[in-house]
């Protein structure tokens, strides 16, 4: 936790962290930041390019894009972070169990995980949304499952690596049981790299959410999400490019910020080598 604060002291960390905090702020207070409503149509105002009244312009229904972007941040950020949160939890349990017990269970998990890992996340998510059905819940579940392999792999690799450390042997020589070794040594040491990679994956998940939204499988209208906004804008890209431009930029900048802040965290926690070895 202290490393997060220290990461803010690095110049890149401060800029990236500032952007992320701003995004969280607009997501939480979206309703109070602009004079417009995200869902009231004003067809007379449709297709307005950016102007002092509508900083980012309006869409085909005359809705203010900045307002929708703020509300979209709420959907996009919450969907991707909740999905990744669940994915990390499951992945850690699965990966820790595989790394800890080894043997046949480990081999079975490894085969399945390696197989899914070599498939693109978008494909897994597409199929899953097709099964579960579109909407925010479906998107969350699909993203969660799509990233499960990554966290399982990483946790397993960490546990395997740590298992060979002498301090584990030292604990055993004192008479430590499995629970002590797992919960007092292995998991606490594995936590930092897994959490940092979860943060980085949240960035990828934002892109994934947007892509599902583009296919019309994400949040359903009228709920604004960055992906849904781009989906609507894609048909109008030649007529009103600003509709699709700004949500895309929001995604790109946010993901860059997540990556930069993650880099700062990795440097602060001094875990670069461990993250690379496990990748």
């Amino acid at each position, binding site marked *: 936790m202290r490393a997060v604060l220290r990461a803010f002291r690095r110049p890149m960390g401060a800029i990236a962290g500032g952007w992320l905090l701003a995004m969280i702020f607009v997501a939480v207070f979206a309703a109070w930041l602009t004079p417009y409503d995200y869902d009231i149509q004003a067809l007379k105002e449709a297709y307005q390019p950016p102007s002092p009244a509508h900083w980012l312009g309006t869409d085909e229904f005359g809705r203010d894009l900045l307002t929708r972007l703020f509300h979209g941040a709420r959907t996009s950020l919450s969907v991707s972070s909740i999905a990744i949160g669940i994915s990390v939890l499951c992945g850690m349990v699965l990966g820790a169990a595989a790394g800890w017990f080894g043997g046949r269970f480990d081999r079975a998990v490894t085969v399945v995980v390696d197989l899914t890992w070599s498939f693109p996340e978008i494909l897994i998510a597409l199929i899953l949304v097709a099964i579960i059905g579109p909407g925010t819940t479906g998107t969350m579940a699909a993203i969660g499952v799509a990233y499960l392999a990554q966290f399982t792999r990483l946790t397993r690799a960490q546990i395997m690596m740590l298992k060979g450390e002498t301090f584990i042997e*030292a*604990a055993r020589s004192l*008479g430590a*049981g499995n629970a*002590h070794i797992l919960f007092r*040594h292995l998991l606490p040491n594995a936590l930092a790299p897994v959490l940092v990679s979860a943060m980085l994956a949240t960035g990828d998940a934002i892109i994934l959410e947007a892509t599902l939204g583009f296919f019309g499988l994400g949040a359903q209208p009228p709920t604004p999400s960055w992906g849904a906004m781009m989906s609507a804008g894609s048909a109008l890209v030649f007529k009103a490019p600003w509709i699709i431009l700004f949500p895309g930029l929001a995604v790109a900048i946010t993901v860059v910020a997540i990556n930069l802040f993650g880099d700062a965290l990795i440097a602060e926690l001094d875990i670069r080598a461990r993250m690379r070895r496990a990748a």
Partner: protein
Amino acid sequence: MTQPLIQLRALTRRFETGGGWFTPARSMTAVRAVDLAIARGEVVGVVGESGCGKSTLARLVLRLIEPTSGQILLDGTDLTALPRAALRAARRRMAMVFQDPYSSLDPRYTVADVLAEPFVVQRRPMDKGAAEAMLADVGLPASVAASHPHQLSGGQRQRVGIARALALRPDFIVLDEPTASLDVSIQAQIIELLSGLRDRLGLTYLFISHDLGLVRYFCDRIVVMYLGAVVEVLPRPDAAPRHPYTQALMQSNLSPDPSRRRAIAPLAGEIPSPFSLPPGCAFAGRCPRASDRCRTERPALETAEHPVACFHPI
């Protein structure tokens, strides 16, 4: 004769590797039928080169690795037959100090956490001020208790490792190359410390090392291993070697005295792979005294005042 504190009977460990889709199955005997008795208060050294099985032996004695066969008796109780709970209780009487003072401490633990761990694990109350006393025992100031391992020097870390080993006041400590990763000036400090602790607390040591000079300085009795088997047990540190391998080890050990220069007369060849050992004496291929018998028959360790496993001892 009184009962030895530790007695190993035909202790053996084999390792199997591979056998999967892409790697052929191979097996090696890391430790082959080792018999050894250690009396209370004794310092027994185990010396040998890489692959001789000394580190595996150290872990077998504490049952950190399960033996393939054989027995480990602590005060007459067979550790290999103990159920988990009883083994945990027995671990209060034994401890280990590891070679690498960097990886033997959890990087997330403070020194105080490290010292408390034995009590937590064994569910024993820890007295107030116990940590300070433990640190004082190994010559560290109480102020290091709040430090993390990366803030300490190698020598200080190894002292913390020793304090952890002493926490539950064991009778028997396995020292696995405790000074091999330290500078010589620090190595001497640690050896002095271990020596003093033994005298004060009446400890029994099994001291593993590749450094014959150090073993001869520190130990009462010396076990020489080569490729998993004991080839000789020197009853006194200054005893003359009887096995050709022990002799070669002694000649390879360079004396830090320029007035006593010797021509370096190295042993030919290198240690063969433990996965493909010849049928006879493992040392036969490099031994200047080897005969046909050595190449076909494996010599047993004789039981004598000065045991040696060789058909042509010196």
